[in-house]
């Protein structure tokens, strides 16, 4: 019978073509964000091979669950997600179809990078969708604070050591050198940002609470009337008034939002529109987690020159 033959053929193909896991190969680490891949590279060094599902210039809330990702996940030893339901729209079906029971949440090969991090904007009252795309577990853009980057790197080192105990010293050494560099860099970034402590800014989406808290900036408004809701004429007018009365110098926009409204606002108010990159890979220069802050802080400082 035809169907039986088809089934047998499929089975045979599956057995022949099933992805084998070579015993002494590098650990295959799949991350959702490029930031997490960069941190995993820093901690894992040449013992890991990383792949990020989401590009740094892509809106991390809206990602297609492409079957090619299923293939990546089927071969992964470790999946690192940002958590806090940032990936709720695409990651669960990918994990379910991965045929890889090691990377399901709760399994050894799954790491929620938000664990232990300082998470802001945790709702204190009941959340409803009348508030737009609110995240009931808190703001998921937490990696924009380098201290959270440190915590993520530590959990990664612990996880890698658990999965690959024979290399635990190497992971510990990589972590130590990462942390050392981070401490140095944090001093440099803090010094660059110090003159602007208390500066008021407007951002497009609420992606920056961790960054602005670290560097003492003051977000006074968002171009989106509510998270995930596109700008409306009335709200845009309110923002224009706010910028004019408070003399706000800067409007910060993530790379994946339309610049039309921000540019209109800038025209009316004289504020500068600055594209701010929330993730590694946003532009080719942002090669790693350090470069992310170097680039953004550099851009911020030069945009603020002669202002405030």
């Amino acid at each position, binding site marked *: 019978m035809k169907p039986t033959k088809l089934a047998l053929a499929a089975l045979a193909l*599956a057995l022949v073509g099933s992805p084998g896991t070579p015993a002494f190969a590098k650990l295959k680490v799949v991350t959702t964000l490029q930031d997490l891949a960069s941190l995993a590279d820093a901690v894992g060094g040449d013992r890991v091979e990383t792949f990020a599902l989401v590009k740094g210039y892509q809106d991390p809330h809206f990602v297609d669950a492409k079957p090619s990702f299923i293939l990546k996940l089927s071969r992964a030893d470790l999946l690192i997600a940002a958590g806090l339901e940032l990936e709720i*729209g695409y990651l669960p079906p990918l994990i379910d179809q991965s045929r890889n*029971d090691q990377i399901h949440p709760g399994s050894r090969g799954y790491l929620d990078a938000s664990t232990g991090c300082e998470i802001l904007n945790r709702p204190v009252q009941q959340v409803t969708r009348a508030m737009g795309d609110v995240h009931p577990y808190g703001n998921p853009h937490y990696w924009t604070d380098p201290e959270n980057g440190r915590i993520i790197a530590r959990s990664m080192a612990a996880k890698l050591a658990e999965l690959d105990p024979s290399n635990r010293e190497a992971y510990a050494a990589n972590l130590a050198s990462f942390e050392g560099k981070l401490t140095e860099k944090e001093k440099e970034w803090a010094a660059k940002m110090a003159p602007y402590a208390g500066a008021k800014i407007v951002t497009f989406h609420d992606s920056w609470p961790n960054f602005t808290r670290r560097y003492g900036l003051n977000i006074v408004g968002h171009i989106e009337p509510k998270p995930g809701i596109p700008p409306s004429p009335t709200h845009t007018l309110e923002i224009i008034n706010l910028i004019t009365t408070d003399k706000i110098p800067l409007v910060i926009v993530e790379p994946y939002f339309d610049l039309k409204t921000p540019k209109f606002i800038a025209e009316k108010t004289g504020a500068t529109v600055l594209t701010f990159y929330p993730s590694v890979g946003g532009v080719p220069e942002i090669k790693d987690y350090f470069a992310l802050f170097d680039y953004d802080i550099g851009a911020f400082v030069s945009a603020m020159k002669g202002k405030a």
Partner: protein
Amino acid sequence: MRPIVSCRAVAVLLALGLPAAAVRAEEKAAQPTAGPATSSAAQAEKGPAGPPSPEPAKATAPPTAAEVEALRREIEELKKQIQALRDQVRAALLPEQGTASGAAPAQTASTPLPQPPIPGLSTPPPAAPSQTSNYFNPSVSVIGNYLGVGGSNGTENLPSSSLRESEVSFQAIVDPYARADFFLSFGEEGVDVEEGFVTFTALPAGVLAKVGRMRTAFGKINPLHLHVLPWPDEPLPIVNLLGGEEGWVGTGVSAAFLLPLPGDVFSEATVQVLRGDSGELFAAPDRGDLAYNGHYRVFGDLSEATNLEVGLSYGQGPNGLTPGSKTRLEGLDATLRWKPLRTATYRSASFRGEFIRSRREDPLGDQTADGWFLSGEYQLAKRWFTGARIESAGHADDASQTDHGKALLLTFWPSEFSQLRGELRRREYADGETADELLLQLQFAIGAHGAHPF
């Protein structure tokens, strides 16, 4: 599930048994305080029921009025604390009990209530729901699908206004090996289990198995629920060749194998063995008459922004016209998507097409009917999409009869959770009727609906 819950409740009750008994003892001890101070002191002297007194020597000496007063205050204080604790526990439990506890309050006050076995009640974990028994409840969502229709159509006479479908879904992880998904489709009158299946996600050799009732993996459109289609209606090849608006829904077993091709090209083969009955499509006079479906798909990224998926399907099942007569289905589908990642939420396009051939063994003459559609969608702005579709399909039971159609679409998404869509549709039916209609669809979702397959 139920035995586990009740076991847990019993355990909690047992854990609470001691404190509750202590509470009652203290209440009794406290009662006489209304009487003269001396009698209360006498009671205290006689009552060894309470916790052993740390200073037994004192019991022999008559207590002073000041001591009695101090004790009384302490007891009052304890009563208040107990009441506060009770209120906390009751508040935590009330939502679960619902409003059915009209006469209960007096009773619940004296019955020991389950209490989370956490020693420090004063610091409950933040943001955690207080109903511990609800932790493992499935995600629940309802999607309303309202359809208003204008124009006239004597062949497919849709009502002018209808809540066409309310899809209720329950989705959760079963255990470390499986997850379950239920989709109940409520029409205005009846309920249908559109899908209800368990998926085994932890099988060896790259197998993903499903058991239950499911939309059959025939082609690209048939497996999709009505509310995720890019149109308010099912295209003609589905309606005419896959058993009507519902499409092919089967009950049985499905196994999908991952067969990676070189160059990281995704490919997957699905084999399904299903009961021989299925709506108007298949009819099995005998239990042993089964329906089979096989689907093979290949997906590749052509560039970062563009990807292509091509699928082949083959299905067959008994059609019930004579014992042993079958209907065989062949399908070819292709989907091309374009979505530049940086502007992914503003601009995208997709093109899809599907061809279905139905070969129906019929004692009065075998019928081979073909059907196809081609459809395109273009995203104009963050919340606006336009689309167009052309379609044609023969009748499965009479291949000489062919219907044709074309449609233009405009969709507006106020948010991710609601969608307003208009379709201008012309269908030219084989009986000679030409129907021009306007379909207005409003869809709205509440609750936590799992993400859909790509």
